């Protein structure tokens, strides 16, 4: 079926806009789109989006992570073997992490990473034919915010929810930051790490994030004040 931008699409649909744009110049195809011999076809159900001038993608619902280069992910160290760590990032096979890809790590100076630790890392290699590889440094050799996450709590959610709360127009983080302080790391693999001053506050952050999945912006604001008042003990 022929569809337009911002329409609801199903796999097998195609859009003439992408094809005509492709004739004129370069087009960037995001997730959910695939070029076949004659046309660009949609491969995922969701909503077709466009960002000017010529980037197209499909917003879809997904829970399982498929690695993609450059994304920040949260992984669990499952195994230490020789000079690499195996890190579970929720994809079909565990990602590898060299012990040298930490800030200031040398052969002598090994990073302190234990099995069971939670890591915030960047996808360096993500190809369908290769094992994914992650690193805990940026291209300048600095760790930035990457590395081992201590304490706090990690929970799983759908990939959409991560994208939703990271969207600058989403009022969730804006609303709760006013209420109580917390730290948060969102992995694009559907894992979110949270930490706050007390256990209750940490649970409140998790509660607010999970509850916002199906809510509209106004409802989110309402929900956040509601949670804050529970936290403050106004509501019994």
């Amino acid at each position: 079926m022929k569809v337009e931008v911002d329409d609801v699409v199903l796999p097998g649909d195609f859009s003439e806009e992408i094809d005509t744009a492709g004739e004129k110049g370069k087009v960037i195809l995001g997730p959910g789109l695939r070029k076949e011999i004659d046309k660009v076809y949609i491969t995922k159900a969701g909503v077709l989006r466009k960002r000017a001038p010529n980037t197209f993608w499909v917003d879809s619902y997904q829970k399982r992570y498929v690695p993609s280069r450059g994304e920040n992910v949260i992984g669990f160290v499952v195994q230490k073997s020789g000079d690499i760590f195996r890190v579970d990032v929720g994809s079909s096979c565990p990602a590898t992490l060299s012990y040298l890809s930490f800030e200031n790590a040398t052969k002598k100076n090994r990073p302190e990473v234990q099995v069971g630790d939670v890591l915030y890392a960047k996808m360096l290699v993500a190809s369908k034919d290769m094992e994914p590889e992650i690193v805990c440094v940026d291209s300048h050799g600095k760790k930035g915010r990457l590395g081992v996450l201590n304490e706090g709590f990690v929970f799983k959610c759908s990939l959409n929810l991560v994208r939703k709360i990271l969207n600058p127009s989403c009022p969730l983080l804006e609303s709760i930051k006013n209420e109580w302080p917390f730290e948060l790391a969102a992995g694009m693999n559907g894992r979110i790490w949270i930490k706050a001053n007390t256990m209750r506050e940490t649970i409140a952050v998790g509660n607010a994030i999970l509850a916002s999945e199906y809510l509209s912006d106004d409802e989110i604001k309402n929900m956040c004040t509601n949670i804050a008042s529970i936290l403050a003990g106004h509501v019994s």
Partner: protein
Amino acid sequence: MRYLFLSSCEKNFIHRIISEGHRLDGRNYNESRNLQISFGSEYGSCIVSLGETKVLAQVTCEVTQPKQIRPNEGILYINVEISPMAAPQFEANRQTDLTVYLNRLLEKCYKDSKCIDLESLCIVVEEKVWSLRVDIKVLNHAGNLVECASIAALTSLAHFKRPDVTRSGDSVIIHTLVEKDPIPTVLYHYPVCLTFAIFQNNILLSDPSFIEECVCASGTEEVNSSGGLLVVGMNQYRELCLLNLSGAALYDSSIVHKAIKSAADRCKEIVDTVKKTIMNDDTMRQKRVRINFSDIITSDHVLSLNKKDLNIRLKNYNADLPKCDDEEMIEEFEDEKPEPSKYDVVPSLPQTAEIIAKKGASTWIEISSESDED
């Protein structure tokens, strides 16, 4: 079975909130998740959901030869299957330890406790008896499978009706449901298995969720005293049918007494719910209302996605916001709003946001800003 990995950070957090008196989903220690029972169109088929854990049970019957040693008793057979539908870590057509464990527990609870009148299942002594087969299929494994599966088995057995038979001389006629009203199974008592998670050898959690089940038996660096899972089988007369402890050894037996005590009330409650739903279902069927599993599909809410219970929840959080009653509260908060926030969300790296204190920073924020500088 694929290995499922839990990070030390999750383990520590669960241990710590539980020792502080909270639970991740906001329940009290002795609070269970929401129990729902729905019936299919046939007798003896039901889906039981305990929170997000969902189990399908179906009872079927056939005429077979009785066992040599018990020539006048029918046969009860329980079969548990856990397919990849339950959770991705399970493999198809493969028996796991969990399947065997579950099967054995249910057999103990329903076969060995003699709750079913097997003699009434006899048609011709030494020749023909009814054999009841209970098929338990796990649809979604979100913790406490034992309790959910046992409620499902009990409900389907109590709901099941077998066709009536008449004997004339040597021949036996089995009547279809249309010809003659089917006969319900006779249950002497209604046993139910309950699971308790024991944390740090002295905290008792009823109806543990998946993560609590995984965490309770494993000790961590911070908490080395470990616990385990205690299964208590009990009927509505507060009679104990089975006890099973897996995990670490208990050095304090009073916790078992505590578990049995709280199990007694909960069992009564569950059995009452089961009886009530079966009664309701019966009256519905008598009114010729067609009962079907399609009733569990909710199409009334706007989304076609199923709405889940939150697995991280504050104690008093209510998903359906009471919008009108706390108007005052909202106003109160609006008054406070103009005051500039103490914290600021700054986009740091792509895909991350961080809250930085403008003043009066908490300690952990300082640590993170220190790490920023180097």
